[in-house]
């Protein structure tokens, strides 16, 4: 375990998916995949806010993976909170030129997601991990701010998803 999965990668863990096969292989090898606690917030929020029993069922299935330790959740602790506060002071709003044009969420929702991205990056940084994402742009911006804030620190590496789908 050297890297922490963000929302864009962890949300691919679905029944029958390549992501689930990867997660189970890592578990069998004794190195369960780590997911940032704020990513769980974002995933469950997305599944629960729709009045769709299939999404609710998926949320329950995900709870099982958390309950039996198939996914190892790294908590958002005090150190991560301190670091996230520093980063947010430097980058209060999502970089406009980095926003995905397919992202049809409201400005308020994008802002909430941006705050969670900062929390995910801070969780990885505080835990000594890298971050795995399908959203390199935003996390590279955060990594650059971390590098500027704490030049003596080993940098946060932004890593691509280990599976294609």
């Amino acid at each position: 375990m050297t890297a922490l999965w963000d929302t864009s990668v962890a949300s691919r863990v679905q029944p029958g998916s390549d992501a689930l096969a990867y997660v189970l292989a890592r578990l069998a090898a004794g190195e369960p995949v780590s997911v940032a606690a704020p990513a769980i917030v974002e995933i469950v929020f997305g599944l629960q806010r729709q009045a769709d029993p299939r999404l609710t069922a998926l949320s329950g299935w995900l709870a099982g993976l958390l309950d039996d330790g198939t996914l190892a959740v790294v908590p958002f602790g005090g150190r991560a909170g301190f670091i996230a506060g520093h980063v947010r002071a430097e980058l209060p709003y999502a970089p406009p030129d980095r926003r995905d044009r397919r992202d049809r969420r409201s400005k308020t929702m994008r802002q909430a997601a941006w705050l969670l991205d900062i929390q995910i990056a801070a969780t990885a940084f505080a835990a000594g991990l890298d971050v795995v994402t399908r959203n390199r742009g935003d996390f590279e911006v955060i990594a650059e701010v971390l590098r500027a804030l704490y030049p003596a620190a080993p940098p946060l590496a932004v890593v691509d998803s280990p599976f294609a789908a």
Partner: protein
Amino acid sequence: MPQRAAATATTPPRKRAPRVEGERTTLRVPNTLIAQADLLAAELGISRNDALIRLATRGAELQDRQRQIAERRDARWAAVMQHATSVEPGEFPSAEEIEQAIFGPHEDDPE
């Protein structure tokens, strides 16, 4: 011994591990680990001894990775503390100023 000859003919030869340099040692292995080693040995067609070495090597790799992560975690936090304590404490703001800073509007906030 025709039965034994037949069994020998159908059983694939056990793979021999490459010779490795190292110290010879004797140790007491817990039964649970022996069971795991025997399972791995059967799966891979190797000896119990080789299976134990593989398990120990894998464990050492995981341990080394955990150590690297812990070192990076500590180095990062040391850098955060260095930054956070770089300003000498002088006069602190009033309680009202602190509340305004945390909960009040900021000039950069959008309307």
